[in-house]
């Protein structure tokens, strides 16, 4: 019954969205050129007839208005208009909001219907929705908005790229940078020339009516259609949870090939006007490539450093911290675009450079805000891009040429496969961990084309070939996104490709990562050659001594990474226990190891604890052991649109808590003391903290560990106890049995003595 309701509600949502949109087009009855003009769209030729119509309508409207006005002033005073209808002056923001709302309702709908979203990736569904909406708009007779250059490159693309760049796994990226660069640069060049050349050959075939297409146009076409698209790759790959190496290879390639695409595109655009190519031009093209890519990175780095430096001083104005991050990055992107440098690389460089320093400076809430906003914007952008892609497909003029289109698709596939195989052969000679055949297949298969190719295609000026090119580009995009996107998941399963390792981030792994870094650097030094680790170590040291001092406020600049990791981990555990309070499964005393098992035995020092009987002590110990539950029970797989990069940030609903409490209540009757405590801890959710601290009271040799904790943690814990206060109150209402109360009293009593922070905590929980 609930499923039926949900499904019908999602359908309702979808239909509401579509209806709203179409009525908004229908009622005002004006063309949508208004909006395009507001956005500065570049579809000049298309806007022509529409604009004329628009002007006429305006004239008519104004004349009608004038008439009524003159009429009314001649006759009598018009009564005060209580309710009037003036759609035009809210038209633009209204329609923009409506589009975004439609996109989000679609997204909502897809996630409520689980069956479909498992088989078909979201990008395909959104394109289909776009096709439908485009069809409806065309049927009505309106002009649909078009995915033009400015809309796409200035408003829709930057959030996605910033999101990707800010959260780029730098370690993996840098470890594989050589491979990624080879794929991005050499691979894209190969693709562009191969596709261009082959298509020129195809155009020479008699009977295809393609003789007008010359070599340079074909090369231009090749350069547009050959670039792997980051949006499409992200959209598809994030659902299949593939291992990090492959993910970063394909994704990194899609990001870095932007420089190549920009240079090639401008190069061929210029040449196709000039008509001939000389050696000097080719040489200048190569120089241009270096300028574009390195210049873009330089711009990004400069803005990133500026942003990091600014964040050093924001300790008194925490509220605007996220804005600095967003604006500096956007400025980096736009500044690079001014000089025709690679905006994407600039944005990535800005995010990567800024991140470690900004994160050390800003507050936790600002960090959360940045993360949420980036995910939100990138999610909306991606959805809109795919919907517009569908709409533009229906709207645009098409010139379908069977030969051209079919051969384009084939040649693209072939060139991708050949390129990957050839390059991997070369790369494997230099890699320590070689790429297997499976890896190569996934890299080749994951080369999806997307909206960037489409938007670039729009810029082609020659209208006759433009339509044909656009049709071919759309076909390639559809083919890669639909066919490859849908089949990649079963193929990954079939080939048993390694999936993403669930991140544990245990402290042992962190210790050993650092240890290994130093060890390998040392061995390299002994061997005497300056390898990867040597340079990485040098950079880290440079970073620590000079850069961090300038860009990170206060003492955090000297904090070594292990300590900051440890502090973060502690805080995460504390927050997790407070916020979640329950986990996927009911807490069971799986690991009952406490510190006393680990610490070497030492003579017991005199403690100010009232003497307790042996049996009581045993009970207490049992209860405490039961509390020490595994803190990382829930494993999350990586999904870009879930805000669950850290496992603790899950929002637990009230209903779930109540349900768990009810279940706990059932178990209470079976086991009295043991499970009472687990119930208490499950709902107050602070037991590991409590246990950790209490455990330390048994530890005779380091009670001072609490003083060495950073003040943040203590404050956080008292904060957390206020919240657990409330949940403790709620829970006490539901607790029926009296011996539960007894046990709680007992536990409170016995946790009273000890260091000061224990008393604070227990004092607050005695509600």
């Amino acid at each position, binding site marked *: 019954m609930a499923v039926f309701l949900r499904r019908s509600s999602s359908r309702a949502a979808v239909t509401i969205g579509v209806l709203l949109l179409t009525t908004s087009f229908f009622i005002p009855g004006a063309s949508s050129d208004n909006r395009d003009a507001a956005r500065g769209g570049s579809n000049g030729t298309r806007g022509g007839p529409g604009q004329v119509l628009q002007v006429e309508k305006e004239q008519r409207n104004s004349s009608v208005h004038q008439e009524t006005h003159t009429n009314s002033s001649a006759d009598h005073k018009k009564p005060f208009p209580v309710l009037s209808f003036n759609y035009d002056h809210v038209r633009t923001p209204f329609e923009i909001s409506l589009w975004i709302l439609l996109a989000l309702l679609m997204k909502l709908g897809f996630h409520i219907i689980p069956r479909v979203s498992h088989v078909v990736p979201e990008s395909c569904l959104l394109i289909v929705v776009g096709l439908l909406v485009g069809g409806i708009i065309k049927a009505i007779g309106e002009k649909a908005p078009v995915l033009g250059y400015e809309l796409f490159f200035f408003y829709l693309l930057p959030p996605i790229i910033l999101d990707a760049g800010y959260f780029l796994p730098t370690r993996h990226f840098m470890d594989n940078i050589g491979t990624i660069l080879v794929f991005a640069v050499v691979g894209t060049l190969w693709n562009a020339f191969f596709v261009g050349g082959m298509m020129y050959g195809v155009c020479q075939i008699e009977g295809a009516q393609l003789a007008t297409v010359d070599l340079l146009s074909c090369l231009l076409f090749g350069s547009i259609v050959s670039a792997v698209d980051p949006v499409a790759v992200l959209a598809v790959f994030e659902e299949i949870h593939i291992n990090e190496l492959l993910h970063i290879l394909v994704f990194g390639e899609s990001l870095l090939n932007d420089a190549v695409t920009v240079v090639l595109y401008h190069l061929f655009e210029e040449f196709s006007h000039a008509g001939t190519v000389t050696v000097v031009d080719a040489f200048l093209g190569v120089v241009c490539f270096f300028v574009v890519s390195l210049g873009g990175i330089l711009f990004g780095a400069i803005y990133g450093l500026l942003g990091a430096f600014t964040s050093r001083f924001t300790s008194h104005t925490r509220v605007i911290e996220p804005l600095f991050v967003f604006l500096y990055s956007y400025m980096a992107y736009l500044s690079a675009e001014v000089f025709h440098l690679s905006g994407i690389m600039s944005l990535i460089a800005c995010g990567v450079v800024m991140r470690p320093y900004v994160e050390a400076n800003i507050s936790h809430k600002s960090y959360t805000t940045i993360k949420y906003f980036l995910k939100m914007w990138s999610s909306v952008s991606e959805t809109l891009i795919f919907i517009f892609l569908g709409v533009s497909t229906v709207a645009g003029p098409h010139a379908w040429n069977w030969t051209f289109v079919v051969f384009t698709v084939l040649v693209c596939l072939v060139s991708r496969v050949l390129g990957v195989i050839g390059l991997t052969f070369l790369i494997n000679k230099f890699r320590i961990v070689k790429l297997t055949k499976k890896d190569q297949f996934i890299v080749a298969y994951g080369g999806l084309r997307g909206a960037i190719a489409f938007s670039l295609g729009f810029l082609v000026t020659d209208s006759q070939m433009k339509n044909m090119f656009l049709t071919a580009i759309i076909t390639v995009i559809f083919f890669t996104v639909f066919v490859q996107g849908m089949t990649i998941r079963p193929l990954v399963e079939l080939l048993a490709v390694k999936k993403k390792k669930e991140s544990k981030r245990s402290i042992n792994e962190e210790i050993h990562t650092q240890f290994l870094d130093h060890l390998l650097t040392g061995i390299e030094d002994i061997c005497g050659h300056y390898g990867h680790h040597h340079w990485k170590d040098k950079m880290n040291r440079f970073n620590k001594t000079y850069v961090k001092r300038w860009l990170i406020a206060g003492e955090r600049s000297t904090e070594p990474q292990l300590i900051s990791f440890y502090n973060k981990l502690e805080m995460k555990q504390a927050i997790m226990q407070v916020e979640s309070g329950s986990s996927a499964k009911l807490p069971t005393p799986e690991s009952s190891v406490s*510190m006393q098992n680990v610490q070497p035995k030492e003579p017991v020092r005199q403690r100010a604890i009232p003497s307790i009987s042996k049996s009581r002590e045993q009970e207490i110990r049992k209860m405490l052991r039961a509390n020490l539950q595994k803190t990382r029970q829930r494993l999350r797989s990586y999904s870009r649109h879930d805000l669950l990069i850290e496992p603790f940030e899950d929002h637990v609903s009230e209903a779930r808590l109540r349900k768990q409490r009810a279940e706990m209540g059932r178990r209470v009757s079976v086991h009295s003391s043991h499970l009472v405590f687990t119930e208490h801890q499950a709902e107050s959710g602070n037991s590991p903290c409590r246990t950790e601290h209490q455990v330390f009271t048994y530890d005779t040799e380091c009670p001072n560990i609490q003083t060495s904790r950073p003040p943040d943690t203590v404050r956080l814990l008292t904060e957390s106890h206020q919240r657990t206060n409330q949940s403790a109150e709620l829970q006490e209402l539901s607790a029926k049995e009296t011996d539960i109360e007894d046990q709680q009293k007992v536990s409170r009593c016995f946790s009273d003595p000890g260091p000061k922070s224990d008393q604070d905590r227990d004092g607050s929980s005695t509600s």
Partner: protein
Amino acid sequence: MGALQSLPAQPEYIDLAQKTGFSFEQIAILHKRFKQLSRDEETLRRENFSQIPDLACNPIRTQIIEAFFDKRNYHQNDVGMVEEIGFKEFLVVMSHFRPPSHRMTEEQRENVRTEKLRFLFNMHDTDNDGTITLEEYRHVVEELLSRSGALGKETAKGIADAAMLEVASISVGHMEPDEFYEGITFEHFLKLLKGFEIESRMNIRFLNMDTSTLFFLFSFSSI
């Protein structure tokens, strides 16, 4: 032996190559480096290592140097420390950092993993008793943080304690209050670092060509 002054006789190299898996060119280069470090003597001592300038900034240099003089790393089932090592021992220790070859069976890969983890374990377990006790682990963390100065000691203890707790929880699970977790045995260590993928991480590139002439080229070949 005077023969080591010039290009050594092939049979020596063949034996070493079989034992360690290096190629002849790699052995020749490492031999050259060995002679450079030992000032043309036949054995290396600890002082020779201390003279490497870059190694001085490394927080765990003592452990690294000790690893070379640790008999457990010579694959001869021997224990104890030595005062000086010859080229063969140098090479055997270096062979722990060779990457697993492209075509290896699952079992061979497992062996490589165990061998590398054994090396790490030996580095931590300084008193050769087969377990890493809390004290030894604390020492490891302290060394790692030794360059941070004042913050070091107390936080190191806290971190090491938390890490030890985690190992115990993972390996043993359920313990009575009066039981005592002696230390990390090798099996626990294996279990702990199971997801660490050490066979692909604990490698350095051993060159097939001479460093001194092609230094520039290879500093960029860290793909």
